[in-house]
């Protein structure tokens, strides 16, 4: 049956209610099984030996003494993970990042791994592995890496996207450009120009659960992987490709997930664990330490961004230009390109250009982090917008409203927008009591807007009706933000049964067709489409079975509010049949009743949010406290409003941490100085006020209930909102994130000297 995803306005009974979450009790009682909670008989313990150098050639690697140690069952190096990538540079980067080949490219880069009978033997074995390095010059700073005399990471990188093509290699992998109009002509028409350079430091997603897996390779070529991931089907494909396994013979089961935020969309240790298990012939458990997570999983980019805005005194932005430099770790990627696409997406601009440069550095390979690349670009642009408002003496909300994108606006990244929600979020911000609340001494207020694309993707679901009429939904999108609750609500809505009669599970890769991972705010958007489709297919079967039970044509059976009802006067007053009634007879009417769905959920629709932030800055210490914070965002339709509010709050909190404290600190030697939560300070509850939220519901035309993804956009505005608030409190423009106490004190001292 063809599935029609278009929005239809309808009264909803289950969707939009705040039901109890199905995973809550297990999580608060410790029964939920995370990645490290899975064990197998005969399981070995793995440890990974990592480079202490930021950049070093591996001259010699001798594992013989380690292999001879009693209790060691396998040692692997790059030789055990041969290159099967067939020229696929992105896949090769994943392979090389999992285990260094000729060079260690950052502090923490894996060079060997051991599987032993216990952790103490594994640690002892690591000390017996001899690695001779030739230490090479390194570079970790984004601006230093693009300097002409910077140490070169990879002499095969020649900047693409420039004409003529360069004749010398560099650390700039690619140039990209977006925009329209004539920015020079636009600046010529302006009365005021704001021009600044901004920097943001590298941050980690900070998920509380480290990467963990158990790998088990069998002699017959089959294998199992139990793992903490945002996408077990994607992990299956990547691991199978890297290890030369048949995809169908590798079964991947996802655990509960203690946070991912993009960092668990990428394999790190999993291919290594599989290689160790294959070599040892036994199950292997590999759990990264917190230090390893910081040093050797995937943080976001550090950035350096130039912004130039021109405007007339009436507040019309006549021209906008940004040049964005993003680090990607030691491998080329497209993070600056994404930043360039998102940078001016909130605005209706006649003349706009954004240029992105991808910069390789001796830092860990960058991974996605919640609306990847957008928060840094928004920080730069929204800071400049704020400064522009000051320069023309215009309220910053009014300036944004005057220039906001709307339906029909040509976006800065290319296409013309359909119906979008930036205007309503700004109108709501303008009307919000927060915006006019009084401020005290050393306090300031900032606001900012943010944009993210949102994705759909390949999705597959099974809906099975039990003999008692209760329902199980098996989905393939990992539940990172409450999708089991929202999908159960949607199944209940479609079938017309209570939420409590539906149980949603995340199926393993052998039990269900392929699913894209839970990224791009797609979990509930995509799997709800598949759930609706599966439920409608099940209803078709339920009607057929009811028709058989009544011995009437199926065309005469309607499905209404959880019951089959015989239509028309010729069928008299037959009592409606419930799901339970029909399920009880399933064995005699055709067997089990189920609905299946496989589809591509596309047309997710772009998303916008507006945040308001109040801070108080202590001028003695430079310490900042967020004292009030409001998130306003369009959800399309909030399936489970409490979860939606949680996503808004969580994004804001992560952004606040990024804005105020979080950063990777490297020493002169290129080693990470703060790979732990004591020295890398993420906000905790006592640091924060209650984050207020306002959900707007502007239906997405490409979803039956109007749902939009909500998971990512909320991290886009906070960097700018917080920095604008701090700048307002201090009357000094802060241009370097995080606005940590040392940077604030330095700014205050510089201001005092002026």
């Amino acid at each position, binding site marked *: 049956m063809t599935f029609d995803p278009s929005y239809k306005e309808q009264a909803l009974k289950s969707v939009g209610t705040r039901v109890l979450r199905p995973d809550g009790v297990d999580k608060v009682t410790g029964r939920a099984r995370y990645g490290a909670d899975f064990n197998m008989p005969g399981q070995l313990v793995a440890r990974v030996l990592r480079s202490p150098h930021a950049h070093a050639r591996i001259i010699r690697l001798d594992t013989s003494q380690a292999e001879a140690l009693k209790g060691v069952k396998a040692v692997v190096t790059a030789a055990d993970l041969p290159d099967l990538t067939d020229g696929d540079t992105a896949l090769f980067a994943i392979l090389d990042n999992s285990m260094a080949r000729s060079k260690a490219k950052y502090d923490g880069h894996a060079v060997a791994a051991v599987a032993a009978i216990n952790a103490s033997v594994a640690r002892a074995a690591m000390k017996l592995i001899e690695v001779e390095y030739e230490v090479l010059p390194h570079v970790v700073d984004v601006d230093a890496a693009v300097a002409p005399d910077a140490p070169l990471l990879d002499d095969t990188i020649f900047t*693409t*996207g420039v*004409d003529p093509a360069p004749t010398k290699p560099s650390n700039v992998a*690619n140039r*990209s*450009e*977006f925009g329209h109009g004539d920015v020079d002509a636009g600046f010529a028409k302006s009365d005021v120009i704001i021009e600044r350079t901004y920097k943001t430091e590298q941050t980690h*997603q900070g998920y509380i659960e480290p990467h963990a897996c158990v790998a088990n390779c069998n002699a017959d070529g089959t294998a199992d992987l139990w793992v903490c991931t945002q996408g077990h089907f994607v992990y299956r494909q990547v691991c199978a490709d890297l290890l030369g396994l048949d995809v169908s013979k590798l079964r991947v089961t996802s655990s509960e997930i203690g946070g991912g*935020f*993009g960092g668990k*969309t990428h394999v790190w240790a999993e291919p290594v664990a599989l290689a160790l298990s294959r070599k040892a012939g036994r199950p292997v458990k590999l759990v990264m330490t917190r230090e390893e997570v910081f040093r050797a999983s995937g943080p976001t980019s550090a950035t350096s961004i130039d912004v130039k805005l021109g405007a007339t005194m009436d507040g019309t932005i006549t021209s906008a230009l940004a040049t964005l430099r993003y680090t990607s770790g030691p491998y080329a990627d*497209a993070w600056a*390109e*994404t930043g360039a*696409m998102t940078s001016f997406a909130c605005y209706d601009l006649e003349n706009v250009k954004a240029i992105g440069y991808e910069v390789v550095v001796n830092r860990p390979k960058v991974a*996605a*982090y*919640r*609306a*990847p690349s957008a928060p840094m670009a928004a920080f730069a642009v929204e800071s400049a917008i704020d400064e522009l408002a000051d320069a023309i003496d215009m309220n910053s909300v009014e300036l944004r409203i005057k220039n906001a994108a709307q339906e029909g606006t040509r*976006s800065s*990244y*290319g*296409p*013309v*927008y*359909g119906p979008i929600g930036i205007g309503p979020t700004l109108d709501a911000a303008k009307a919000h009591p927060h915006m006019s609340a009084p401020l005290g001494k050393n306090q300031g207020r900032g606001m900012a807007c943010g944009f993210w*694309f*949102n*994705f*759909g*993707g*390949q999705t597959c679901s099974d809906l099975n009706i039990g003999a008692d009429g209760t329902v199980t939904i098996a989905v393939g999108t990992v539940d990172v933000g409450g999708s089991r609750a929202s999908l159960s609500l949607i199944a209940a809505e479609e079938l017309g049964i209570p939420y409590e009669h539906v149980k949603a599970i995340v199926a393993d890769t052998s039990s269900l067709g392929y699913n894209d991972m839970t*990224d*791009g*705010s*797609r979990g509930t958007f995509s799997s709800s489409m598949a759930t609706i489709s599966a439920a409608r297919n099940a209803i078709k079967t339920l009607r057929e079975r009811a028709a058989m039970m009544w011995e009437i044509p199926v065309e005469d059976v309607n499905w209404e509010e959880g019951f089959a009802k015989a239509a028309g006067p010729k069928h008299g007053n037959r009592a409606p049949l419930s799901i339970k009634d029909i399920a009880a007879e399933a064995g005699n009417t055709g067997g089990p009743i189920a609905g299946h769905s496989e589809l*591509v959920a*596309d*047309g*997710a*629709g*772009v998303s916008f949010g507006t945040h308001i932030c109040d801070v108080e800055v202590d001028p003695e210490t430079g310490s900042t406290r967020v004292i009030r914070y409001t998130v306003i965002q369009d959800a399309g339709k909030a399936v489970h409003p409490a979860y939606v509010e949680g996503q808004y709050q969580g994004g804001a909190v992560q952004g606040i941490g990024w804005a105020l404290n979080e950063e990777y600190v490297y020493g002169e030697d290129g080693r990470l100085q703060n790979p732990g939560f004591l020295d890398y300070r993420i906000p905790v509850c006592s640091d924060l006020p209650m984050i207020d939220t306002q959900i707007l519901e502007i239906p997405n035309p*490409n979803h039956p209930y109007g749902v939009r993804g909500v*998971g*990512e956009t909320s991290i886009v505005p906070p960097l700018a909102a917080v920095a604008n608030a701090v700048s307002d409190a201090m009357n000094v423009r802060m241009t370097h994130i995080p606005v940590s106490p040392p940077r604030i004190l330095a700014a205050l001292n510089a201001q005092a000297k002026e």
Partner: protein
Amino acid sequence: MVEVTLWAGLRPLAGNQEHVTIEANTIRELLRRLQERYPGLEGPIKKDVAVAINGTIYRDDWSQSIPDGAEVFLMRRLAGG
């Protein structure tokens, strides 16, 4: 006929054209005919491309029809978090 706008990174693979006019009723037809005309686009189309039709971004769905006069963009397929 559909006028397709290519993002800057694709243009060197398509005769340095920013806009390409092509006969296509669906995303599948559009991508196939683009590849036939510009074989260098095969790699990016396989892995890196999303199609925006009148502002709505489609990453996977080949069956999506392209209305007459629609604005069509080839965009980079992005990673999410």
